[in-house]
């Protein structure tokens, strides 16, 4: 990863110095090794804190909505999964392709600091990735862990390591998609009884604190005014721990991004209560795939989405419910 970071920094400096771009969106060093923050660099001098490591899990594409409206071109570093979101934003006219310079970067899967903590590793000072292993240095010593065990859950089921869009590429090593099937857990839930599923979601959603992190980080949630913030909508309630409002918020949010969600997994990554929110979106993805043909949001920046198109022979809702539709 080190060589990737160096090259990224070098290119960022070149682009800024030559004036080709007015700003570069990347990551800068946080307080620790494991908390880099998305950042906008406007000059080469600011690049001192530039960082790219195994903890740069954040999807930067949503920042483009604000940043690319500013004067001049914006360069952005996109991991393969982020490039899907980028296309989706272009498709929805939230950003303009020509305003942005896309640098596709290598990603070997990102790490989850909470999983490290569960393994008893705290006060991490550095992490070196070595094939299937990660060597974690901390104030309390060095440990070697299997990388698969400490990946962000969104990376475990990484759908593709192919950049969907790029102006240039910084990739040194071959990248591999996730080993786990991303619909495994959805299928498991589908196999449960209604009552079991209800209990599962009730327990998970009861943790929700309605902080809106999932919504605000989601590149598909790009409404200028969310219906849940609009007093005139009649649902802008904030009775944060009312059971119904939790259901309502998550159902409506999942539905609103259905067919547009690229499965970037940011919602689950940011949830302070670790609710597996991606399982909501994946149900829609799975249903769309089964009922209306395989569809991956963000694969292209044009074309219709499953919910804005139809065929005359689409399945009947009642058949879908009875499991008779294919």
């Amino acid at each position: 990863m080190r060589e990737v970071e160096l090259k990224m920094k070098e290119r960022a400096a070149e682009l800024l110095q030559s004036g080709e771009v007015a700003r570069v969106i990347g990551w800068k060093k946080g307080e620790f090794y494991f908390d880099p923050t998305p950042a906008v660099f406007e000059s080469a001098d600011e690049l001192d804190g530039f960082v790219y490591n195994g903890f740069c899990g954040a999807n930067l594409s949503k920042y483009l909505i604000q940043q690319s409206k500013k004067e001049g071109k914006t360069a952005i570093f996109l991991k393969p999964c982020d490039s899907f979101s980028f296309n989706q934003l272009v498709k929805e006219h939230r950003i303009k392709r020509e305003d942005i310079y896309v640098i596709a970067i290598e990603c070997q899967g990102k790490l989850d600091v909470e999983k490290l903590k569960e393994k008893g590793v705290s006060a991490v000072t550095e992490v070196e990735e070595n094939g299937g292993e990660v060597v974690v240095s901390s104030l309390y010593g060095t440990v070697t862990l299997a990388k698969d065990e400490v990946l962000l859950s969104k990376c475990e089921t990484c759908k593709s390591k192919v950049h969907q869009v790029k102006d240039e590429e910084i990739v040194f090593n071959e990248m591999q998609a996730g080993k786990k099937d991303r619909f495994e857990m959805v299928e498991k839930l589908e196999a449960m009884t209604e009552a079991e599923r209800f209990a599962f979601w009730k327990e998970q959603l009861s943790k929700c604190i309605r902080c809106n992190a999932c919504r605000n980080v989601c590149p598909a949630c790009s409404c200028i005014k969310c219906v849940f913030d609009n007093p005139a909508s009649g649902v802008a309630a904030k009775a944060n721990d009312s059971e119904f409002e939790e259901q309502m918020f998550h159902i409506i949010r999942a539905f609103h991004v259905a067919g547009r969600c690229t499965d970037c997994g940011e919602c689950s990554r940011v949830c302070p209560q670790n609710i597996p929110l991606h399982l909501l979106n994946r149900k829609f993805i799975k249903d769309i795939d089964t009922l209306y043909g395989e569809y991956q949001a963000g694969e292209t920046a044009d074309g219709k989405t499953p919910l804005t198109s139809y065929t005359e022979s689409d399945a009947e809702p009642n058949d879908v419910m009875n499991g008779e539709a294919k």
Partner: protein
Amino acid sequence: MQEVTEKKEFTPNIVAFCCNWCSYAGADLAGSSRLTYPANVKIIRVPCSCRVNPMFVLKAFQQGADGVILCGCHPGDCYYVTGNYYTRRRMSLLYSFLNYMGIEKERTRVEWVSAAEGARFSAVMNDFVKQVTELGENRRLTDLRVKEGE
């Protein structure tokens, strides 16, 4: 929350979203033909079945509906040509999703009822009411605050 096992004398609240051009006219025809359907079916007329935002369905449940049925023109017969094709996809996904959240699948339904199908309207409603009555009160997708003091 306790699951209700007792079902005696339970009359469900049913919300039926009916498109103005077919299903609402179908309900009208049922009425003028003296075909009955239960009084606890509350019809909400919408310009097209496609007008029904998932939020409406949730709102209905929040306010105490035990079942929600959506009726529109038969696919291909939409007054606005294609509206109900979109409805079909939307509601397939929404209802499937609600079921994934553990909401009983018998609580939701989509039926196509034309303006000429007064008898069918009445039969559909009777059947749906029966189905929801057997299922019992909606406890999984409802706002307890609304029902407070009842």
